[in-house]
């Protein structure tokens, strides 16, 4: 079989927020069609990495290729290559499900005819077609997540980024959402890159796993390989064995890192 080019390629990626180094030289590859779990404790650098992969944040140094494109110089090609479901919700509450989809489709420049067809197809796939004309305000957490997944798929992306897609949902809904994701991966051959704190979900769904801690990738491989490496029975045990039992602070966003740096500066002046 021919060796396929990786759809995501990251080399020596670094991101600093002034003195604070959130991501400290990570490298990894994700193969076309993989379901890739990116795991790590709070503050390990997961969200910062996803932001760099999705053009929301510029790397301090290092190289990224998404679907063969460089986020720094080919921003629009990169943006068309992926769909994303953010950690916290990003729908417009005052619009209907259909309007949220339409908004997205127009931003991604999908022709009107295709737009209608694809929207209908995806809303039916996520079982939201009956509720298409209701305002998002009336949607439950699970419905919102499903709609965000449907929206992320509208423009036929090659990669779907999911930042903790099942956070705060009950086990039934979580199960349901993973069914959709696996289904998509198989039917549309879409590459899935996700983060989660439910390590059992990663064990069940991911083909490949990378664990990041303190801004560095400490291990990667298939779930079985990682379990073997840590001599653990489950991926969750392996995760704890590899990252320690200590409780972590949340990852710093742009605003927080600014405040963090101000605090550093003040301390230095004192």
């Amino acid at each position, binding site marked *: 079989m021919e060796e396929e080019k990786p759809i995501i390629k990251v080399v020596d990626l670094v991101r600093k927020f002034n003195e604070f180094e959130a991501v400290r030289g990570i490298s990894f590859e994700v193969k076309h069609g993989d379901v890739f779990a990116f795991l790590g404790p709070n503050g390990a650098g997961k969200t910062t990495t996803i932001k760099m992969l999705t053009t929301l944040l510029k790397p301090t140094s290092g190289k990224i290729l998404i679907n063969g494109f460089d986020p720094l110089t080919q921003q629009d090609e990169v943006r068309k290559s992926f769909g994303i479901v953010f950690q916290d919700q990003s729908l417009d509450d*005052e619009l209907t499900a259909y309007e949220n989809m339409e908004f*997205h489709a127009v*931003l*991604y*420049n999908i022709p009107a005819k295709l737009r209608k067809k694809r929207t209908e197809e995806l809303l039916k796939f996520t079982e939201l077609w009956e509720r298409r004309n209701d305002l998002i305000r009336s949607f439950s957490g699970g419905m919102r997540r499903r709609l965000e997944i449907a929206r992320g798929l509208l423009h036929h992306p090659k990669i779907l980024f999911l930042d903790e897609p099942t956070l705060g949902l009950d086990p039934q809904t979580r199960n349901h959402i993973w069914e959709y994701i696996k289904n998509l991966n198989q039917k549309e051959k879409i590459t899935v890159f996700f983060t989660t704190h439910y390590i059992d979900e990663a064990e069940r769904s991911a083909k490949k796993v990378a664990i990041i801690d303190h801004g560095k990738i400490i291990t990667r491989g298939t779930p079985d390989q990682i379990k073997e490496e840590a001599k653990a029975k489950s991926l969750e045990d392996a995760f704890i064995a590899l990252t320690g039992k200590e409780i972590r602070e949340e990852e710093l966003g742009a605003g927080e890192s600014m405040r963090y740096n101000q605090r550093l500066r003040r301390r230095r002046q004192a």
Partner: protein
Amino acid sequence: MNAIYILWLRQLKRYFRSKSRIVGSLGQPLLFLLALSFGFGPIFQKAGGGNYLEFLAPGVIAMGILFTALFSGIEIIWDKQFGFLKETLVAPVTRLRIMIGRTLGGATIALIQGIIVLIIAYFIGFRLSSINLFLAFVFMFLVAIIFTALGTTIASLLEDMQGFQLIMNFLVMPIFFFSGALFPLNDLPRSISLISGANPLTYGVDGLRGALTGVSQFSLGTDLSVLILTSAVLLVLGGYLFSKIEI
């Protein structure tokens, strides 16, 4: 359909769906029109200023636009906090186009608000003595663009709504009071006329008054040039700061 249009449309839909917002933002202009025109009208007339409502109405129309336009910046902070901004920022659309779409949306809403105040003023007794409605709309729209862009500029720099509201309260009233909306600027002390001269709303009110009543302090050409120049500067500044937003 294109990106600017859909961003504009989104804002209009949100506006028309929130009836309380429409009604609520009309309270203040209505109060100003009623209380001031009936309260100060007779004195203004005695002092030889003519019909006060005719003087006041363009100012209060401008006020309605000013308030709505500036506060539309809060939608950016709203979108930042509730996550929707991210959805637009990862789309293959330049930040400048996003900013233009939003500004046009905010400005259109402010313009509608201004037109509603004009209609209310008409029912209270305001009569257009020189009907150049088209020119009036041009002035109203320019005022709307300027202050929507200013709202965007400020909102791009801030993280939370409380901060935005504080700065707005600090800005709105001085801009309004020193614009010649309530009193003529002819015989003011030098310091105050300097402030008024630097206030873009002054030219908006003056131009609007000229277009609606035929009386203005500056030439309409001056008013137009100042407004166009200011809106260009603020659009560039707002666009730049908006493009620097990190989430």
